[in-house]
């Protein structure tokens, strides 16, 4: 069973987990993801690759507590184990030298764009990185991104740090100023990926987004991860997760993500009531008002 080396809180709702899984790490590439199961009764949840330490065989994932399973993940101590961690899944991000490439990371999406940024950089791109979060205390990986980006822009929705506003505002300004960008990769909450895609469509800049539909197996066996791209149904786990943002039906994806709203609430509330659940207070405050 894969060993958890480290599992620390890096923000009010965000955690960073390091998992020792050398054979997977040896094969994994930027843009791919894994599916983990915390324990025998657990769900299979997809998590993007947020870091690969090839030398030591260590995988980093950064996750946000949004429900039962992500909450449960916080309880795994350093030195503990996950039931399973399978991967690398999905098609690696397309890496090429476009001259200038722009990475846009919103919220938890700041994590998966990091290994992609490294790969873009290695391919010789000039790198413009834009990261943003709701508020200053939710931001992370700023130093990591700063170390490899040629230009880094940081923003917060509430103006508590960096530019006051959305990542798409910064991107628009760059495009309006005539900055030539060969390729954009945007990862983050669905509304953000939609806004970025709508924007770049007008400027005719090719844009990748990384889609995160609900998944079960991650091998193409169930079709639960269906998304519609350019009017065609695709299985995000094997055909993606990266797709042409200008062709994605975001509306459909948005609706499909809410398929289990009721059950998710039941599972989370039950978890929060379990004796000894240390999360209750902090999580309730952010995710379950009421």
């Amino acid at each position, binding site marked *: 069973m894969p060993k958890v080396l480290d599992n620390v809180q890096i923000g009010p709702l965000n955690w960073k987990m390091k998992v020792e899984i050398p*054979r*997977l790490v040896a*094969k994994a590439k930027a843009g791919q993801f894994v599916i983990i*199961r915390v324990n025998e*009764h*657990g*769900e*299979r949840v997809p998590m993007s690759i947020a870091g690969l330490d090839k030398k030591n065989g260590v995988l980093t994932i950064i996750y946000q507590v949004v429900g*039962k*399973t992500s909450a*449960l993940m916080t309880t795994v101590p350093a030195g503990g184990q996950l*039931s*399973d*961690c*399978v*991967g*690398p*899944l999905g098609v690696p991000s397309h890496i090429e030298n476009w001259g200038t490439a722009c990475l846009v990371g919103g919220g938890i999406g700041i994590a998966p764009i990091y290994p992609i940024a490294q790969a873009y950089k290695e391919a010789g791109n000039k790198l413009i990185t834009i990261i943003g979060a709701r508020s200053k205390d939710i931001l992370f990986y700023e130093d990591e991104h700063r170390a490899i980006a040629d230009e880094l822009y940081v923003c917060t929705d509430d103006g508590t740090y960096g530019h006051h506003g959305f990542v798409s505002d910064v991107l628009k300004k760059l495009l309006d100023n005539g900055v030539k960008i060969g390729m954009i990769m945007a990862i983050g909450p669905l509304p953000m990926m939609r806004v970025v895609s709508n924007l770049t469509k007008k400027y005719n800049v090719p844009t990748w987004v990384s889609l995160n539909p609900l998944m*079960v*197996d991650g*091998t*193409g*066996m*169930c*079709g*639960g991860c*269906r998304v*519609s791209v350019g009017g065609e*149904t695709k299985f995000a786990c*094997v055909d993606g997760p990266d797709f042409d943002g200008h062709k994605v039906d975001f509306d*459909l994806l948005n*609706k*499909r993500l*809410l*398929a*289990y709203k009721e*059950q*998710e609430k*039941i*599972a989370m509330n*039950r978890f929060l009531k379990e004796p000894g659940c240390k999360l209750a207070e902090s999580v309730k405050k952010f995710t379950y008002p009421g």
Partner: protein
Amino acid sequence: MIEKIDKKERMKIPRQVMPQQDPKERIHNFKEVPFGLSEEQALVEAARCLECKNQPCVAGCPVEVDIPGFIDLILQKDYAAAARKIKETNSLPAVCGRVCPQEEQCEMKCVLGKGKKGKPVAIGYLERFVADYERDNNLVELPKIAPSTGRKVAVVGSGPAGLTVAGDLVKLGHDVTIFEALHKPGGVLVYGIPEFRLPKAVVQAECDFLARMGVKFENSTIVGKMDTIDELFENGYDAIFIGTGAGLPNFMGIPGENLIGIYSANEYLTRSNLMRAFEFPDYDTPIIHGKNVAVLGGGNTAMDSVRTALRLGADNAYIVYRRSEVEMPARIEEIHHAKEEGVQFHMLTNPVKFIGDDDGKVKAMECIKMQLGEPDASGRRRPVPIKGSNFTMEVDLVVVAIGNSSNPLIQKTTPGLEVNKWGNIVVDEKTMQTSRKAVYAGGDIVTGGATVILAAGAGKIAARAMHKYLMEEVKK
């Protein structure tokens, strides 16, 4: 030992009826439906066998189990020996006794079944009886394992084909590792076929048994994503068996198919069986509980899905099938069980589109009536739509169970591996060898969706050929 009675007398013994859970009760639980024969019943049933010289039943079995032989051992009350007899050619009797379509195989050929009123010997029931007896009484003996040959074998996929290959080759002294993509071994036996038809403990016992014989299991390992076939060779494997099944769900390709509440059977059954969503919230994986559930298709997968829907609380559970009942590929026993449980059959009906509400959830399905025309390639009469016969059904859950295609991962990552136009791996049927040296394949990945026993049978053939290859051509 029961005295052998006169043949005429034997023919008067009625076929034993397997006790089963009352339909009214069982639609509220996931426990196995048939309870199995008692020892007394098994002895009576075994006594019906006429011991025909030409053994038509054996010819009807895809792996030629010595049926009269094992029935004779039942009569001698040596049930464990009877189980061992079956295992000479079929390593999964507890599974096959439950899920094989005996009515089209061994039992169809049984002389006692001839004529209008004839009822064949209940070979499947007896097979299950001896396998359960052996397991429940801890009589499963580890076979003699040959001294190590020093040859390493990789088996990709842990369905019945892979399990069979692994069992046979480990016995011969080879070092065998099974790589399985999911977190539990068993293939369709764990993720597809429901608990009420094949208890997962039975499958687990088979896997545990292989582990005791020395087979290594590497779960959560996707070949082609982790190591490719060629990398497995580089890592020291001398021969490889591919038993990856037919795991890519087909959809209808009609409008509205991506609405919430439209599942492939694979997803619906995987959530319920592998992830145990029927025990939510004790298990974390959720599943949609429909009130009016339509299952599209007429095979075993469709029957398993519709009966699962009933158990998850559906008020109305429909089978919607474009041909008529006689063309349904599902086992007769399963159709019968579904009817007993109150499943409603809409034959000669085909959906043309799905209709959703504002949240993107399916709320209705438009269908068209069909009639049977000329026979098609499969020999069955082709269903053709009746113009203007459209009507709408109210549904809040739809399960698409119209078959699977092959998952292309291994084919795409293995240069030189020949596949046919459906993406199935091409093999030499006598050896199951593929177009690649030392690479063998069998089961649904070769045949397309078929049966457990055909997959296991292919595993037997492959194991024999692989053993020969390993001993004659791999120098150690």
